[in-house]
């Protein structure tokens, strides 16, 4: 039992004493003991570590301290070894012996337990060098990971209670309030009310009894700043409250903490005991004559109790319902007495403000938002944890620089700020500053600091439903707008998510939201519609997809589909079925299933972008199923039934312009419906980009020809070598046919728009690949530079190698993770010897006698975020350099070649694509368009889907005009689908696709991927978890 602290000297004596003790140790091990690390097993690690240090006789050299939350919760259990500041993560009790032996005894830190940057793969030993920490600025969390939260002496060592000393013995109450006002600190609980002003109101209120409250009812799901603060630095909160109490003349305080935080409550209680013991709490604090004590009040689980008046009602022992204001709590609060209530983080900031002055605090931040803010960064982000940044840091900096971006190469979709009262901000707001006003203008709120990152797999309608369900559940029921209004909104959202949305639902939601905002009694109700409004504002298209197309683009709302893979496939291929059949060894049946929805399964089994795999639930366990490869296995091994001719049963004639995947699919679908269809193809053979864009080593011509033959065998007439606009005019077709489908693709490469581009040896990727695939001789030279980062860039580079180029380099202006090309293609190219340079952009083609001799480039650095959510490359000054190049291939984009259209075609084209309606109809009512011609370069499967959609629309339009009923698909042959799943799901990665060795394929046109063996295919098929359940 120590003597009570009476003077500033006493404080300094303890500080020096602790300092001496600590300096005796050679190493100081700060093991995180936050809730997150506890749950990950840090207590066991601590026990083993202590025992091992003891048994090695290191107890007087190595100090082991269990600290509060370090913030990097996802890496738990974590630990920092001082003074070198080495950071260890994901510790296991089994690691301890090695750690003690190597690091503590031999002085060799253990690399395998250190942090590895997920992007670069580099190991970073020091905590201060890890981006997660180095981009932060610790003020309110200044003690995290440095003190034992259960030791007041550690806190005193860090200048603890000096602010309280100053407030109690050196400042008058109005001076304290003034200091807080100068700091311009605003409430960290969410509303952002100026703290000094609040205190001033309360200080002015008459009354002998006043209360000082701390709101630790951190109810926002996804927020844990207050928990961490209480666990890591409980005395900071107590000290802040003592100062606040002195400022308003209060002698009793309460900390209202939620029951879900047992560790925080325990540590706060220990801290309170110690504070009393040391004379910084209770009667005659620090000899000042000022009395103040407080206790912890454990909440019983009601979100609404985060609202100040409800919180007070709850402390009074009643149902925690809010009451109308005024009177404000500063006048009449707890038990009718003047009361101030501040959030944990606000209180924890106060000691530093008083000690170092308000001006020091205000030196950080933006004009209207001062100081730092702690955010709980969670969700789909690599570095999950607690981060403290100066106000004004952008959301993008927090998510990317500190958070390390989105895991698994997925795309960022939105950041949710402010919990159930907040909103979702899309990629276009990544440059938004964390500032109370800026965030609320964008449709969210600062809130208490929860920042939940969402990626492409998050459904925004489901998110809105989730928050509305939360608010509805937590609505206290006192006022009608909130009690009934949130229920009605929830019902609408549930309906939309269940695939029963109706036209007008969005408008109804907006109307209800406005009414509830205007009329609800308290903050909970007034802000409850925010998540809905912000998602409608930024993601209206997702609502529309749910309501009109009955589709959930993120494949979350499971009432709308049987399996996420099938739902995600643009043509709805019945993936679980053919995989089940593959598993059962019924390859021929599997092939029939494939052909039902996709006329190009062999093609797609090789070159599909497989969006299905990105939504495969198996991916949440280990890796998604190799759906594409399995499809290929089926097509390689199944017996392919001969296709019979389909008779023409209708009088209408239809012309399709373009014999690519979209045109051929539309032709087949129209043929099935009884029309006479003619496809006009300008090239000598059909196939479009499949034939003239994709090289044969990826898609053998025989495979493609077989699938095209299956279409022409039905009686579709294919006229190759006929170019519309040259050999036959568009107007002629318009006159001779009843409907036209334009599927000409995007056949023209974008120019680089740099000087010298007209030199001989500069190619567009499309034109280059076309020549290459026509087997025309191309003199590519020795050095080839490819510009771009998509699949065409990779195809061009690999083709250039096969044409004999010695060195081929791809120059890309962003980083690798931003490359739109498929990862497996990039890897294959690298294996073959293609070099890739990142963050470079071309400036000029160097030439001699009209021929390319080189390329001048400049280095790029990443600047602010662009609308796509990627950092925009910016030129670094004076960074130009020249590379030798005999040929340059520009693969930066493709657009429509519209020379086939006549002036009188009446088909409107904007920029580089054909304009179409929702049903793919153009401005000419007889003409439809789809595929790359409409979307710009996209996946094969998108083009096929467009062909199907256009065919259905053309057919429907003709039938409607003739008053006929809609076409009905004839029933398919019945195929029984087995339902077999493994009893136990054991983690195992995707079966690897066997490939030709890189040195053998480099100059060869043979197919690189060899296809699965029967054994590999069967075991891969077994990995399917059959999300479709027992639906058949």
């Amino acid at each position, binding site marked *: 039992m120590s003597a009570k602290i009476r003077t500033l000297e006493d404080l300094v004596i303890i500080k020096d004493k602790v300092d001496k003790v600590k300096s005796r140790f050679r190493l100081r091990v700060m093991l995180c003991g936050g*809730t*997150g690390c*506890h*749950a*990950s097993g840090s207590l066991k690690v601590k026990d083993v570590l202590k025992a091992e240090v003891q048994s090695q006789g290191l107890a007087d050299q190595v100090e082991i301290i269990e600290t509060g939350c370090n913030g*990097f*919760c*996802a890496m*738990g259990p974590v630990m920092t070894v001082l003074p070198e500041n080495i950071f260890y993560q994901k510790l296991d009790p089994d690691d301890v012996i090695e750690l003690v032996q190597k690091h503590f005894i031999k002085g060799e830190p253990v690399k395998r337990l250190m942090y590895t940057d997920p992007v670069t793969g580099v190991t970073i030993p020091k905590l201060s060098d890890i981006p997660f920490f180095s981009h932060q600025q610790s003020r309110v969390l200044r003690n995290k990971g440095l003190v034992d939260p259960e030791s007041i002496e550690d806190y005193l060592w860090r200048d603890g209670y000096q602010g309280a000393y100053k407030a109690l013995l050196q400042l008058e109450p109005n001076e304290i309030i003034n200091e807080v006002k100068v700091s311009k600190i605003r409430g960290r609980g969410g509303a952002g009310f100026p703290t000094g002003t609040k205190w001033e109101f309360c200080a002015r209120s008459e009354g002998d009894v006043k209360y000082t409250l701390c709101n630790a009812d*951190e*109810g*926002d*799901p*996804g*927020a*844990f700043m207050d*928990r*961490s603060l209480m666990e890591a630095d409980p005395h900071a909160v107590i000290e802040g409250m003592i100062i606040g109490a002195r400022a308003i003349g209060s002698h009793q305080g309460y900390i209202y903490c939620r*029951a*879900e*935080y047992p560790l925080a409550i325990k540590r706060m209680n220990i801290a309170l005991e110690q504070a009393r013991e040391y004379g910084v709490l209770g009667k005659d604090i620090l000899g000042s004559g000022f009395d103040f004590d407080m206790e912890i*009040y*454990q*909440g*019983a*689980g*009601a*979100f609404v109790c985060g609202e100040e008046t409800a919180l007070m009602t*709850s*402390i*009074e*022992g*009643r*149902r*925690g319902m809010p009451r109308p204001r005024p009177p404000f709590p500063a006048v009449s609060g707890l038990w009718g007495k003047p009361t101030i209530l501040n959030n944990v983080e606000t209180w924890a900031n106060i000691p530093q403000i008083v000690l170092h002055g308000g001006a020091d605090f205000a030196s950080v931040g933006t004009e209207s938002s001062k100081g730092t803010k702690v955010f*709980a960064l*969670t*969700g*789909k982000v690599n570095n*999950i944890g607690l981060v403290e940044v100066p106000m004004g840091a952008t959301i993008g900096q927090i998510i990317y620089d500190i958070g390390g971006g989105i895991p698994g190469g997925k795309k960022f979709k939105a950041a*949710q700020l402010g*919990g159930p009262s907040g909103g979702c901000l899309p990629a276009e707001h990544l440059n938004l500053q964390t500032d109370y006003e800026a965030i609320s203008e964008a449709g969210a709120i600062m809130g208490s600091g*929860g920042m*939940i990152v*969402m990626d492409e797999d*998050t459904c925004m309608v489901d*998110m809105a439903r*989730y*928050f509305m369900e*939360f608010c509805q*559940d*937590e*609505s*206290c*029921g006192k006022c009608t707008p909130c009690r009934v209004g949130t229920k009605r909104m929830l019902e609408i959202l549930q309906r939309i998510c269940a695939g029963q949305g109706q036209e007008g639902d969005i408008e109804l939601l907006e109307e209800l939201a406005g009414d509830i905002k205007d009329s609800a009694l308290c903050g909970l109700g007034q802000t409850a519609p925010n998540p809905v409004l912000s998602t409608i504002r930024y993601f209206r298209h997702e609502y529309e997809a749910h309501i009109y197309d009955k589709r959930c683009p993120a494949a979350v709302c499971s009432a709308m589909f049987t399996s996420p893979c099938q739902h995600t496939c643009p043509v709805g291929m019945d993936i679980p079925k053919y995989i089940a059949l593959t598993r059962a060894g019924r390859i021929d049946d599997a092939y029939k299933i494939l052909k039902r929805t996709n006329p190009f399964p062999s093609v797609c089994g090789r070159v599909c972008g497989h969006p299905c795999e990105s939504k495969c*639930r198996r991916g*949440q*366990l280990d890796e998604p199923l190799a759906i594409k490869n399995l499809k290929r296995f089926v097509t390689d091994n199944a017996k392919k039934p001969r296709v019979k001719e389909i008779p023409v049963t209708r009088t209408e004639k239809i012309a399709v312009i373009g014999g690519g995947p979209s045109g051929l699919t539309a032709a087949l679908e129209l043929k099935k419906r009884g029309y006479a269809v003619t496809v006009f193809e300008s090239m000598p053979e059909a196939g479009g980009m499949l034939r003239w864009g994709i090289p044969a080593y990826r898609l053998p011509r025989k495979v493609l020809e077989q699938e095209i033959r299956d279409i022409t065998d039905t009686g579709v007439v294919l006229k190759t070598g006929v170019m519309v606009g040259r050999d036959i005019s568009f107007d002629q077709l318009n006159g001779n046919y009843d409907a036209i489908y334009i599927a000409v693709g995007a056949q023209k490469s974008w120019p680089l728009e740099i000087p010298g581009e007209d030199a001989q040896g500069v190619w567009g990727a499309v034109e280059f690949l076309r020549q290459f695939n026509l087997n025309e001789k191309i003199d590519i030279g020795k050095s080839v530079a490819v510009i771009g980062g998509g699949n065409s860039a990779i195809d061009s580079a690999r083709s250039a190698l096969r044409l004999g180029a010695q060195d081929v380099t791809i120059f890309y202006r962003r980083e690798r993770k931003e490359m739109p090309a498929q990862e497996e293609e990039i890897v294959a190219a690298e294996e073959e010897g293609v070099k890739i340079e990142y963050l470079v952009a071309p400036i000029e083609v160097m030439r001699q006698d009209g021929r390319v001799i080189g390329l001048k480039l400049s280095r790029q650095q990443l600047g602010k975020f662009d609308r796509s959510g990627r950092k925009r490359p910016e030129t670094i000054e004076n960074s130009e350099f020249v590379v030798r190049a005999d040929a340059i291939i520009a693969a930066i984009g493709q657009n429509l070649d519209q020379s086939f259209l006549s002036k009188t075609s009446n088909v409107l084209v904007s920029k580089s694509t054909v304009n179409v309606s929702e049903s793919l109809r153009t401005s000419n009512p007889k003409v439809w368009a789809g595929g790359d011609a409409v979307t710009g370069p996209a996946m094969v499967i998108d083009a096929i889907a467009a062909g199907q959609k256009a065919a259905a629309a053309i057919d429907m339009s003709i039938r409607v005009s003739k008053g006929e009923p809609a076409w009905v698909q004839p029933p398919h042959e019945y195929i029984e689908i087995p339902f077999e799943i493994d009893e136990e*799901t054991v983690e195992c990665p995707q079966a690897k696709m066997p490939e030709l060795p890189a040195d053998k394929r480099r100059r060869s046109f043979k197919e690189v991927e060899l296809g699965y063996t029967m054994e590999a295919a069967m075991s891969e098929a077994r990995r399917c*978890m059959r999300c479709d359940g027992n639906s058949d």
Partner: protein
Amino acid sequence: MNKKCICEDHYDVDEFTDEQWAKVDKIIDKYCGKPGALIPVLEEVQAVTGFLPEVVQRRVATGLNIPLAQVYGVVTFYSFFTMKPRGRNQIRICLGTACHVRGAQQNMDALEQRLHIKQGECTADREFSIDVVRCLGACGLAPVMTINDDTHRQVKAVKIDEILREYQPENDSSKEHYDVCKN
């Protein structure tokens, strides 16, 4: 807060031991006369009795000398209080935002399917009960589920069976004993 009326529940049978009642009375005595005592009393009492059926609420009301309606009002308002018994193994599944985004709902579906009970219910043999919590503040480990004092991090729906097996009574691991706790 969609709680049923107390009269629909049938846990009014006194199933508590004398020892438990003595503890309850002691808690009431400790707080009696203190303003705002009801919630702390109920928290401590629930720690003793496991849940707060009518008999317990009556005892508290009488002891603190407040109307039963007030006790019932508070019990039904706060999610921490329950009028239904909890399982020997209390499963608490976090449906906070971070857990939701990372697939907590799939875990919930798997649990409900496996135990044949809905959230807020208890298996007939009182082995397991499932409760929803809105954020345990351990978002770094999402999706999170706690069973008794154990925290299970980054839970995957396909692993639910494996996790439950650890808690099943040894002699009936094969038993399909999970029927809805019909009151």
